[in-house]
């Protein structure tokens, strides 16, 4: 494998931490996260933006990391699945996915968690239909989606109740 010599130095904030890395001009964010930064929680499924397994937030915007060039995130803030749980305490979306058995093989799960957390931050009280549309880009071949949707709506409800206290 000949690696191009024209590496770019990029500085960004990843899960709140100032981070510097080298990437080639055509390298996508998903590959940099996994191969350069060892943040392997972000999964790669299709590599063409169809499956959502590589969902991350860039400046709070939900995107597929396979369709972002790593060089684009210079100076920007990226949040990955590794930044979701706080100090070992699972996020309500993660906890509810466990309780509702909203996962089997787990490949789609990091993307689902990142996308569902973004949904609840965007819309704290989503309807089932809104949740299904928001998560339409997160493909899951195990669960049939129903348990995922139930878990997400349950997590949203719990977060609303906690916010109201």
């Amino acid at each position, binding site marked *: 494998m000949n690696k191009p010599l024209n590496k770019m130095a990029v500085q960004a904030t990843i899960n709140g931490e100032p981070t510097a890395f080298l990437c080639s*001009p055509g390298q996508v964010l998903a590959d940099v996260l996994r191969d350069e930064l060892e943040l392997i929680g972000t999964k790669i499924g299709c590599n063409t933006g*169809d499956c959502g397994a590589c969902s991350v937030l860039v400046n709070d915007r939900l*995107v597929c990391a*396979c369709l972002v060039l790593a060089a684009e995130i210079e100076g920007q803030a990226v949040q990955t699945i590794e930044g979701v749980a706080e100090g070992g305490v699972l996020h309500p979306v993660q906890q509810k996915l466990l309780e509702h058995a909203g996962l089997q093989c787990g490949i789609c799960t990091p993307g689902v968690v990142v996308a569902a957390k973004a*949904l609840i931050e965007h819309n704290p009280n989503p309807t089932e239909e809104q949740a299904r549309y928001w998560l339409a*880009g997160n493909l899951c071949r195990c669960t049939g989606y129903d348990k995922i949707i139930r878990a997400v709506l349950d997590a949203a409800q719990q977060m609303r109740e906690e916010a109201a206290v």
Partner: protein
Amino acid sequence: MSIQEFVAPHSLSEAKGFLSDGAAASVLAGGTDLLVGVRLGTRNPERVVDLKKIPELTAISIDAEAVHIGAAASAFSILHDSDVPSFFPGFAEALDLIGSTQIQGRCSAGGNLCNASPAADSIPALIANGAQCLITGPAGDHQMPVEDFVVGPSKNALKEGELLVALILPRPSPQTADAYLRLTPRTEMDIAVAGVGVSLTLDENATCTAARVSIGAVAPTALLVEAAGAALVGTQLDAAAIEAAVAAARQSACPISDKRGTSEYRTHVVGVLVARAIAQAQARIVEAVS
């Protein structure tokens, strides 16, 4: 990937320099077509020019005459961080039909237009609303109607070194509303079998004074069906007028047959969608003025 160089200019003049020095350059807005094309080997740029650091390319502004949408503004920012949906609910619904939440976080209306897919959802909605393309290039700036911008499947009218800067939509009067409808086999994450954009203006007697009807996915490019609009103007959108508009749209359609539908099916469906989109735009005006 073949990409050898990544640049993110901060001004239009800097960007034009990167696009006109002979390098095989591609502009990057959301990348949802470009990076997929690079992955599949259908696009082979040596240089990628990221447009999102250029203020004109991402700005969304609304003045007394028009709504200006930077060509690289993401669908998500148009839908959720701007007032565009309140002016053009049909255009907004078209953007909201593109891809997933993740894709909408990146994809742009300008990119959807430049990519020039026959089935692009936002293009009929832009044509219905009389949108203009603001283009800059080595010879200066000029404007072009959206219906003239797409010249064939995956082909747009940009010349060497030119760049789509913004989409300019005339600000609608309170008596004007748009609608966009499409048919897909799935409810989301799918490509149109047929799509229809309509914009109507009614006077105080509910008589139609202006109408534009555009059809997508039923010809090599989205089409402005002038005869369909003309069939509606001067009427109260009675059944005969709508039937005439439907017939004009079906007359203009020349679809292919593929796995999404036969030519006959698409021609039938585009007429059904024309009638429904007219009814929806009309209902929006009635609701807005009541």
